[in-house]
């Protein structure tokens, strides 16, 4: 089966930032979480997939189709949620619905009404009167109501209360019960990824540091702790984001077996890292306290 998303050597340059040779692959029927610090390039990557931003070079294929030549077809199969939903504030929810329904051939009015009920969206209320979280819910309802094969969401859980966030993550899981549906979402909230994602892609300063299944990540990556005396130039080759303190060091490894072998006979502890640990240590880099 064609992967839902395939990106090869994608480049985008701004004056002060660039996405550098991004390559990743997301098979159909899975949820991928995109994490990284602010300004890492998550939103730019999502906009490039939708061709809302012009790339410098590289290739993006969605459902096996080039996203430049099949722009309209691809967008009709994508449910997109922007990090800041932009709607004209004087329009009512039902007017936005009327507008969207004409653009999507698979639009399902009953589903939209049902989601509005579920999400507590008032059809007759103007956008201006909705809170940020409710606007995000509207955006989600719109994205889910046209039977999209691919949900592409930029920080969809931001601004939502914890209860709704959990409900939403459950909804993602429901969506991909249909094997043809795929979800890609960016977030800062790592617990959301631990709960829902099958694949995790970490992006930092415009580069992908890893993109793999969550299971693989937790099987192979480790949080290494030990005394400062065992850290030398050679051993640091196996470690990332080393943080020293007077009490010892803490670092990440992408291959805990290799580290076990390299530090054999030395007093180290290898724990399972949380996504928070990974994000924190990778984004901070080496720290000597």
């Amino acid at each position: 089966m064609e992967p839902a998303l395939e990106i090869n050597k994608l480049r985008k340059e701004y004056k002060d930032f660039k996405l550098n040779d991004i390559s990743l692959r997301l098979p159909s029927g899975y949820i991928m979480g995109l994490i990284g610090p602010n300004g890492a390039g998550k939103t730019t990557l999502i906009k490039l997939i939708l061709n809302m931003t012009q790339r410098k070079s590289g290739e993006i294929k969605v459902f096996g189709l080039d996203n430049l030549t099949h722009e309209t077809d691809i967008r009709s199969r994508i449910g997109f949620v922007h990090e800041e939903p932009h709607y004209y504030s004087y329009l009512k929810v039902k007017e936005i619905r009327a507008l969207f329904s004409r653009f999507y051939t698979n639009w399902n009015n009953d589903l939209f009404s049902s989601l509005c009920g579920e999400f507590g969206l008032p059809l007759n209320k103007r956008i201006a009167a909705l809170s940020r979280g409710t606007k995000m819910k509207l955006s989600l309802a719109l994205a889910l109501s046209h039977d999209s094969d691919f949900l592409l969401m930029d920080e969809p859980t931001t601004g939502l209360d914890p209860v709704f966030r959990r409900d939403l993550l459950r909804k993602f899981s429901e969506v991909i019960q249909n094997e043809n549906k795929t979800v890609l979402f960016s977030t800062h909230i790592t617990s959301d990824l631990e709960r829902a994602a099958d694949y995790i892609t970490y992006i930092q300063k415009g580069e992908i540091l890893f993109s793999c299944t969550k299971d693989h990540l937790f099987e192979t990556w480790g949080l290494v702790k030990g005394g400062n005396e065992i850290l030398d130039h050679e051993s640091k080759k196996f470690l990332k984001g080393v943080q020293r303190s007077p009490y010892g060091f803490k670092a990440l490894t992408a291959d805990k077996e290799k580290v076990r072998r390299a530090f054999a006979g030395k007093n180290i502890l290898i724990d399972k890292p949380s996504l928070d640990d990974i994000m924190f240590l990778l984004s901070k880099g080496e720290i000597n306290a």
Partner: protein
Amino acid sequence: MLKHIRRELIFNQTQLYIFAGYMIVFWIWIDWKDIPFRMSLVFLSFVLPLFCAVSIQAREEKFKAWTLNCSLPTNRKTLVLARLITSWSLMFAAYVFGLLFSALFQENPAFLSQFLEPKSLLIFLLFSSLFLAFLFSFVIRFGMSGVILGLVALQVLGVITLLLASASNNKDNILRSFLHSIINGVKFFLDHDPTPGFLLLLLVSAAAVNIFTFKFSHFLFARRDF
């Protein structure tokens, strides 16, 4: 295309109410001040593109609607074409409104008879197309602040040109010749007999300008990041 035009109209409905109000005031002013038809036509040809191209864009930027529009299942070519067609639809609606308003309230019969001439419509079409060509392409690429800067720069350039032209008494002054050629060009169109060939020339010129506007605007818009 209809769904796109509908989207434009729904998204810009507040602007349309303001536009309608402005048109009523405009025609009352024309009638009240007894502005000659030729002058009214020139005013109209500049006011309508300005309103259609610029003020709608201002709303768009306020609500960042291009981001939403560019995420819908469509392409930028269609978005540009829809905007151009909507702008022309509004401009024609405003023209027809002016015609009806004049038929009802204009006391000068010559004004209405001139208004009804096909030549008037075609001159409006050509002049508006020329002004829209500049505004539309500029605004779609550089946004509202860009077009304001562009208009201010044009105005400053105009003032400097006028000052330089009046500073010299030399009849061969190149700036004077340039300004006279513009005035003569406008007079040529306004005074020319409405022969079929001339009307066809107006129509073909306006069509060519609009095709250029569309192609150039799309070229610029396709390079814009959202």
